[in-house]
């Protein structure tokens, strides 16, 4: 899965969580969206884990600076899953 494909799929998760028009781009981060509080952050992480069938490790998501890095993390976890 390319980063673009991952971001496109993330968009559907964002739509479900925000119920509003929040456009997913690699540069986007929580600071850019007023509603994006820690509650929605938890929902987003759970939604992404479900949508991609991955599980992040402790502290990993927190360490990503924007959606681009988040997408790369997803990519790594998917690749890892595929190897097993």
């Amino acid at each position, binding site marked *: 899965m390319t980063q673009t494909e991952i971001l496109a799929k993330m968009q559907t998760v964002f739509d479900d969580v925000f*119920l509003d028009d929040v456009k997913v781009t690699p540069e986007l981060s929580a600071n850019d969206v007023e509603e994006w509080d820690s509650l929605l952050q*938890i*929902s987003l992480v759970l939604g992404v884990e479900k949508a991609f069938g991955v599980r*992040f490790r402790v502290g990993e998501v927190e360490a990503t600076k924007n959606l681009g890095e988040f997408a790369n993390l997803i990519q790594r976890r998917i690749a890892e899953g595929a190897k097993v």
Partner: protein
Amino acid sequence: MPGETVTATRLGADSVRDLLAGRDTNFWPALREATRAAQDFSETLSLATMRKKALRAGIPVTIDKTIRLAVAGGSSLYPLNELLEQMIGAASSTGWWHTELWKGDYDNYISEILDPESELYAFKPEAIFLIPSSQRCVYQGALTDSREQQHAAAVAAAEDLLALCRTAHERSGAEIVIANFMPAPDFDPGPYRVRTLGSDWNFRRSVNLELGLNAPSYVHICDAEFLATRRGAMNCYDARAWFETKQLYASDFAVDIAREVASIVRSLHKPSKKVLALDLDNTLWGGVIGDDGMAGIEIGGTHARGEAFRQFQLAIASLAKRGVVLAVCSKNDYKNAAEPFEKHPEMVLKLSDIACFKANWEPKSENLRRIAEELNLGLDSIVFVDDNPAEIEIVNQFVPEIETIHLGPDPAEYASQLLNSRFFEPRSITADDLQRGEQYQQQAARAQAMGSSGTDMESYLDSLDMHSTISEFTPVDVPRISQLINKSNQFNVTTRRRTEAEVEALLTDRSRYAFSVRLADKFGDNGLISVVIVAVEEETATVDTWLMSCRVLKRQMEDEVVNEMVRLAKLRGCSSLIGHYLPTEKNGMVRDLFPRMGFTLVEDTPERTTWQLDVNAFTPHPTHIQIDRRAYPTNSPEN
């Protein structure tokens, strides 16, 4: 027409979202229903987000109560508070409940409660939800310490928590809801876990037990142990969530906890339901009494569907025992509807159990209004149960005060559906209940005294308080008898099969006598458990069929069956009773049955053994079974 689209089907998050987009006034009822049904964290939070958007969008809402709830605990209380607000809101029956919430700091609950000047008290909560820290619920000593020492530590831990509850209650006047401890999910320390009270697994359970048994009436337990066991302990704790955000509960399990707290909060404000109004056809029994008749409906016996309906009736009877009033609300002729209650031997519920019986062709909504009038109770104290969605819909439309349970397609689930509806949960123990408890205790003491007089078989059988009814074959029993005849393999001396028509023919066959046996004991009714067919030819009676349910083995029922066979043989003028044992792969159990019953061997071939009993020399076997009725009570069998 308000309410029209909402009540028709169960609504999920998607339809609520559509209603939100359309600013539909049905939004709030739909949100309420979807929230109550929500299964996971994401769905619940999504519904919470919709609620906030609806408020901002100005979709009108009736706030019919405001709950002042303080939450304090040993873990992060965020985002649990969001789930609590959503679930408590949905606890309203018509509008929405608003929660004013105060949230304590992470792991600061002890000082918040002990400091009389704390923000907790300044908030003036009417209810406090306390989630104690699991980290503090650990046995400090060795796993091999004495059981007394370990138990004392568990008692002390529970007492500490109850002392906190008392302080919080005395200072605020608030009702206290306290979460007990989740079961420890790890394999620690292996199988020794259950052999000591000191393991996390047993220590938490001990503390929970002490907490529950000793909690005063202002303390309400949010039973995390039960809820986690129900969901699976491993699914209730999420290590990553603990380290990242100090969540005590895995996200989906937090929804269970929030729902339970909402249910407790609701119970503090709403009186519980008092009346269970029941549909009949395909609710209390399978089939339609008006079409299928007494012999055609499915209830009890040995078929699976009938057993399921019987189990549902047992669940209803257990509620009645706790004080729930039963009513019938059915579209039927009264005479048809009442007949199974009066005459069907497998019915658990009898006419005398039903306080108000409405079987007619009026709309059910009208009948339910009449039931409320006759019982002098409010409509909102009634719960109506039906398998028919159209009837449920009508009641929802015309008497919305009445809660309904729409039974699903499988009667196997009916009892669970009733109990999991949670409409009839007792929330406090009254003086009457206590008295009743005392009576039960006396009863239990009697039973114990009886049991302790000896551990031998005789006193055990005596303590069972067995009662039996023996009946000639009747039309109502035909389906169950033929099912037993075609199903029984183990306790079956000849394993002869018969169709239902052949069994029916026995009702009028004068060359045979046939009877069935029911057995009840102090633990309940075992139903129809034995079938006997005996052929009469001049002075010889020959056992054609004798089968019995294995669950009543060793109860002396076989002795009573022989007593009855001989009694009827004598009435028929027979001097000899012959029994054949035809061996099969499965009926080795009854190879020695005839000799054990006093028969003597007359023939032994590979195909069969033949046994004989002189009926005139026979002395009835003494047993511990009380025979309440015998077969052919009015017509002598030779007629």
